[in-house]
């Protein structure tokens, strides 16, 4: 295009297509990945943006493969991966906006965490001084400021996880990907990391967290992608997914000393279509409408004067969700 040297005439029409305001951070378009005869992933269609999303699946479901495709560690056999609209395999530029916390525990044990974060921050284009400032900031964020001049080789597992997270956050990324961040951490470290992840989600970043321990994802986020055997089994809000599975009844487990009497009282309730007594003192109520039953249950219990020690909703968690979707009943 020749420059307009005369500077006369009306302004030229913009020929560039307007870019959509908010590109989804992560797009998987009909992505499949095959290793020889093993289909690690097939027909993955995902667009993820904003907030914390949990990637769930049993071991071998394809979670790590998904992240490897995203981080340019391997190439999709079919389909396209887009990170902020760019194919990461061809162009590593989008990594400037991404922070990746890998699963592997291997770090450079001879470096101090300060050195580690600083050195790799400079690969984002920081100068030495900028990198040092940013490193201090993120190490403070993950509570490692006091030990940041100790070699990583002396850190506990939880501290190593936090170093990895700090390293991922140093460039203030818009997308943070964490591959099984809670494995091997003690409860204190787990709480810290979960708080960090929730905080990041609240700040408006897109966060992807993968895990096979469903309880911990539950405590971080409600938005999940469920992978099973390389395919997306379910997508969306945990509870919403559960609600949709109306064919399978919800269960309410009540621990009470007078099981038989309670069963008789409950069976007449609306929306209850089955009651079981799996063992002495435990009543298992089957219903299609959890909310309605829970609304009326307290009055039934009070009227009957039952001494209830525990009420559980065993199905309303992710283990059961997967269990149901994958095949077979709940717990």
């Amino acid at each position, binding site marked *: 295009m020749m420059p307009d040297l005369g500077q006369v005439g009306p302004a030229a029409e913009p020929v560039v297509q307007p870019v959509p305001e908010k590109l989804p951070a992560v797009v998987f378009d009909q992505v499949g990945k095959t290793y020889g005869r093993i289909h690690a992933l097939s027909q993955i269609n995902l667009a993820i943006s904003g907030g914390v999303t949990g990637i769930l699946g049993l071991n071998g479901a394809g979670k790590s493969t998904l992240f*490897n495709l995203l*981080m*340019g*560690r*391997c*190439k999709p056999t079919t389909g396209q991966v887009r990170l902020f609209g760019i194919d990461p395999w061809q*162009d*590593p*530029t*989008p*990594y*400037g*906006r*991404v922070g*990746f916390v*890998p699963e*592997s525990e*291997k*770090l*450079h044990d*001879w*470096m101090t965490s300060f*050195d580690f974060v600083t*050195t*790799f*921050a*400079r*690969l*984002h*284009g*920081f*100068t030495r001084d*900028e990198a040092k400032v940013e490193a201090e900031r993120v190490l403070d964020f993950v509570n490692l400021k006091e030990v940041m001049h100790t070699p990583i080789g002396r850190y506990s597992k939880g501290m190593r996880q936090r170093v990895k997270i700090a*390293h991922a956050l140093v*460039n*203030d*990324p818009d997308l943070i990907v964490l591959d099984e961040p809670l494995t091997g951490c003690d409860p204190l470290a787990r709480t810290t990391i979960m708080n960090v992840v929730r905080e990041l989600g609240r700040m408006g970043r897109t966060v992807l967290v993968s895990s096979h321990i469903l309880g911990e994802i539950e405590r971080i986020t409600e938005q999940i992608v469920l992978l099973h055997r390389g395919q997306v089994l379910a997508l969306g809000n945990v509870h919403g997914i559960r609600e949709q599975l109306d064919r399978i009844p919800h269960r309410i487990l009540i621990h009470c000393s007078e099981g038989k009497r309670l069963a008789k009282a409950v069976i007449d309730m609306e929306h209850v279509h089955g009651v079981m007594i799996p063992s002495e003192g435990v009543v298992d109520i089957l219903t299609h409408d959890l909310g309605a039953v829970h609304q009326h249950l307290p009055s039934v219990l009070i009227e009957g004067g039952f001494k209830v020690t525990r009420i559980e909703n065993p199905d309303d968690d992710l283990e059961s969700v997967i269990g149901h979707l994958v095949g077979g009943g709940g717990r």
Partner: protein
Amino acid sequence: MGSSTKAWSGLDRKATAVAEFTLRQYRTRLSTWVVLASCVVALGTVLLFYIDAMNDTVESVDNDGDGLFDEDGPDFPSSVDATSTTFGYDDDGDCRESDRPDGAKDTNNNGVVCDAILRQNWFGGSAILWDNDVDEDPNEEYFVEEATHRAFLLGYGKLGIVFLLGIFLPLFLATGLIRGEMTSETMHFLLAKPIARGEVLLYRMLGYLTLVWPASAAVVVLSALVTGFAAPGEGVFRFEDLGIWLAILLATWLALLVYGMLFMTLGVMWKYGIVLAIPFAAWEFGMAFLSMGLPSSPLLRVSVIGWCLAIIDAATALSWSDQEAFIAYTTDYAVWSHTVVAPGESLGFLTSQAPFEISATGNIAVAILVLLFQAGVIWIIGQSLFKGKEIA
């Protein structure tokens, strides 16, 4: 903010970061220090032998029986101009004062009686043709020391520095540049950044060169100083050899570059890429000896070390323009019949002709270009392999 960095931009910051990281990684590894120390010890031992030899006195022998010692210094011509240049002087008059006819006094048929000329051999090198009874009484001390000194410079430079440093430093230090990171699963810290894979290769290479180039330069400078001061000849320091040392340094640097690229790329290609590097190193060892024994062999044109040693050979012709005549003189049986080994034997073995019939600078330029070309080709191969590598 850093997030605006693209691949192949902000080069200085990324390059220095990776290079510094590489250097620090080397520093923490025991193997780096062991390797550098072993090289220093090995080369230092050889230098000690040199110093010892330079301090030895050489006995003078009255070769031509005229009662005087060592009348003949380096009076041979400095260039091989076949039939015309003559040298040699019939000190004791055996030839001149004999009553043979002129034809019998000019057995080498160059039109001058009682002299010697330099003639090129068909298999390379030159030889001296003497007229009958022209005896030389060489200055043993000068020739033996000079020959030893020159042989040492060439042998030490070619085998000790260019070969030993040039091959073993990359073998130890360059193979793990990429493969080491892949094996220890820390590669993704380098790759999941706005940095192209080719950049990673380049900067790792840069870090490696920042270690080995100064280290080898230090060895060369130290050796040059030691041999410069301990060398035979007038003057405190021998400046004529500096050209050779520069050539040795250049050849070593290029060897370190090409071998480093090659071994790094072998590491990229296969997990056990080093299994190929080891026989290759042994093969290059053979090539180094071939370059000294049979320098015209075409096999040398495809090896790396052949070209590196060619730089030194070309520089030898520049710095020591009388080398060929010197070798011819110091290996001549007639002159050295009293010694067990003529002083020029080892020098003759260690000296080779530069590969092409062009000027010495031309040879050096060609060799540099070929080596840089080899490095470039290897880098292109390495980069494309690395780009296509999954789960690196």
